[in-house]
């Protein structure tokens, strides 16, 4: 999978500013150019490390789950690690 197009990145940048508070965060440092660089870097990271993540999954499960499910699980793990309020478990009470 290639990196997103410039327009797709622009839309992520724009929408992130709109929904920023939904991530449980209050203050966004820097300016719009800073945030756009961060969006680009995150997309570059996702692109460059997609195969690394896929290879981390044991062969049986790698073929069992489709890419959308693998991506969703990765998102869930990252949210739980960094923004746990956005991925609370029923067990958390």
């Amino acid at each position, binding site marked *: 999978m290639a990196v997103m197009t410039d327009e797709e990145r*622009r839309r992520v*940048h724009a929408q992130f500013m709109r929904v920023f*508070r939904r991530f449980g965060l209050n*203050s966004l*440092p*820097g300016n719009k150019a800073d945030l756009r660089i961060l969006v680009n870097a995150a997309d570059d990271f996702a692109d460059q490390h997609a195969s690394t993540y896929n290879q981390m999954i044991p062969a049986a499960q790698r073929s069992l789950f489709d890419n959308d499910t693998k991506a969703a699980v990765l998102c869930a793990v990252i949210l739980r690690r960094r923004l746990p309020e956005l991925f609370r478990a029923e067990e958390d009470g």
Partner: protein
Amino acid sequence: MGTIYLERRPEQAQFLASAFPEYMKVNGTNMPASGLKYDASSSEAAHFRFVATNYGSGNLTAELFWYADTASSGAVVWEGALSVITPNTDSQDVETDAYATANTVADTHLGTTGQRLHSCSITLSNLDSLAAGDEVSLRIARLPADAGDTMTGDAILTAVRLSYSDS
């Protein structure tokens, strides 16, 4: 010679069918806060109407009161434009009237506290042949595509104070 002041609040704004700032009211710790949330990526505009009672001469000043939703740095570029009709004289259709060329101002977030209140003034020099007693529409927009508009997140407009000379 005196200065006439007119105050306009978010609740008095009118909008077109699209590209308008969201009206918001937040229940603050001790009092509600309301405003118009101008997007950081798409240009949005609000329209305020008034009658230029006792207008004398000279430019109008639109003082904007605003605060940042999530940012604590960067700058916002605001635009103001006037559309004026002289009753009984202008044959212009009210519903198809256009705005004169806009004037702009850039205002930089002063930091320290993200949601602190700022004010800045747009000198409205394109008066669209304004005269005393004219009906006026004022358009206030944010210009997020302007190179000078660097602030992330919404800019929340809480009030507009217009002023002009009566002589």
